[in-house]
């Protein structure tokens, strides 16, 4: 039995259902809306597992599901050495979101990351502590800033309402996922110029630990994907 892990809620689930339906595999929730069980029509030997999108990377790593749909951001953030644990089978064309670095819109002297790097240095000299960036994407943000050779900052954990941390004086900048940028504007923030830290979208992943390669390959072929 191939176990297919799908986000259990909202638009991401519906778009995932649509994506599979276009490829001849009909997924649906069985029973009531509150029950996390599902059925699969149009493919043999496949079980649907409804999970929180955030748990899917871990389940893929452990091999408890063979295939899973989740954001590239979550896989890269949660799985160290992710290419050793999962294979990216197909970007699915929805769930687009960029992980970006944003600063107060009133900082007219801060456009590029070079500006930001200088400001972090000044800030530390003036305030006696390192400029705070609120985020829940610790590994991705740290690795990116390290790669860009920005040093005088600290990450503070923020698991929600991250855009509000600057006005609340618990951070000077934020790194978060944004799709339209409206929440940023509403909170008087602007995105630093240049490429995002990561461009993410919903993606179908294969677990390397789960095995059953022939069965998985058959399903992948049926979906019209190449491995």
């Amino acid at each position: 039995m191939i176990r297919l892990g799908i986000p259990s809620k909202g638009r991401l689930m519906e778009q995932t259902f649509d994506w599979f339906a276009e490829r001849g595999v009909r997924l649906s929730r069985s029973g009531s809306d509150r029950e996390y069980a599902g059925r699969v029509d149009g493919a043999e030997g496949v079980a649907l597992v409804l999970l929180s999108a955030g748990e899917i990377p871990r389940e893929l790593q452990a091999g408890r599901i063979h295939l899973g749909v989740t954001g590239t951001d979550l896989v890269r953030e949660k799985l160290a050495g992710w290419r050793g644990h999962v294979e990216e089978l197909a970007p699915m064309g929805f769930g687009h979101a960029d992980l970006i670095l944003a600063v107060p819109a009133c900082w007219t002297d801060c456009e590029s990351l070079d500006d930001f790097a200088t400001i972090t240095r000044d800030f530390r000299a003036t305030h006696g502590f390192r400029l705070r960036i609120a985020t829940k994407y610790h590994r991705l943000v740290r690795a990116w800033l390290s790669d860009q050779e920005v040093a005088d900052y600290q990450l503070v954990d923020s698991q929600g309402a991250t855009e509000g941390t600057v006005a609340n004086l618990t951070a000077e900048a934020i790194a978060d996922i944004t799709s339209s940028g409206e929440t940023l504007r509403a909170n008087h923030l602007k995105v630093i110029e240049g490429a995002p830290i990561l461009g993410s979208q919903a993606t179908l992943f294969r677990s390397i630990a789960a095995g059953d390669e022939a069965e998985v390959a058959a399903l992948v072929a049926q979906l019209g994907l190449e491995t």
Partner: protein
Amino acid sequence: MTDKRIKQAVGQRILAAFRDAGAVEVAPDILLPAETLLDLYGEDIRARAYITQDPIRGEVMMRPDFTVPVVQMHMATGAEPARYCYLGEVFRKQDHGEFPPEHARDNEYLQAGFELFARDTDADAEVFALFHQTLAGLNLRATMGDMDLLLDAVRALPLSGARRAALLHHIWRPRRFSALLARFSAPPEARSFPTSQAAWSGLRSREEMLARIDRLVSDAAEEPLAPIWADRLERLFAITGPAPDALLALRQLSREIPDIRDAVDRLDARLAALAGRGIDPATIRFDASLGRHTMEYYDGMTFAFEAEGHPDWPPVASGGRYDALVAVLGQAQGRAIPAVGGIIRPGLVAELEGAA
């Protein structure tokens, strides 16, 4: 994998050699206050060190290296000349990004170290010679660098204080340094700072921003740095080779950058002192950029001993001079003393000996 007891025995042997060289053995804590280390190394250390929470002490870090606790201990008891040695584990996460490592490296490994606090100019040669002698017979490649040379060369640039400070700050971040140098060498780009309609938000004040804008405006009025300076720096950074040849190249370059003469003289004296201790300078490789890619705190001589057959290994031993670090950590007590030291990885020594 070499048995831990064998590594421990090798470590004890190295420690004995350090004690024979006059060092007092010390045993710093394993759990260190995270704040000091984070302030020194920056957020990046979180990716490499194990941090945990103590209900009373707050964030604590499992010892990622010995230098900081040894310096702190020394500065707390006074800033007198001293020699210390130690043997113990350090703990490092090995998070390699997208791909898991082919051969997982150890997350905990032994370090045997020697730190010398002294105002004596012979201290560099003493430490280098001690490591050289302790590692003799392992066929390692000895490399020496000198951050002092590079820092003096940057200080010599005909630039404003602000530009010079920015370059000095980034000397350990090669790409940011090159980008800055390129910017300072080019005609200034006019930049406008439109008034923003957005409400003021956050802790950074409007005054702080205006101060920076003033700085940017006066910076844009600066004459670009003549291209010959970037060229001289690049030639300096690229000097590598047997130490006597490198010394000649440095002497030649010091005609164009007279401010590095003192540092070149010191290197010359250090190599002569090593020859006096029976180490042929021609067997030492000099690499002017050694230390630019490693720890930010080395600001004088740097050194590394590497196993040539194992390009994927970290150096078997490494170290250098870190006067500025001591000054920073001694600030509270208002004390400072020059210091130089290094560590040997007994685990790698044991592997080399086991293979032989």
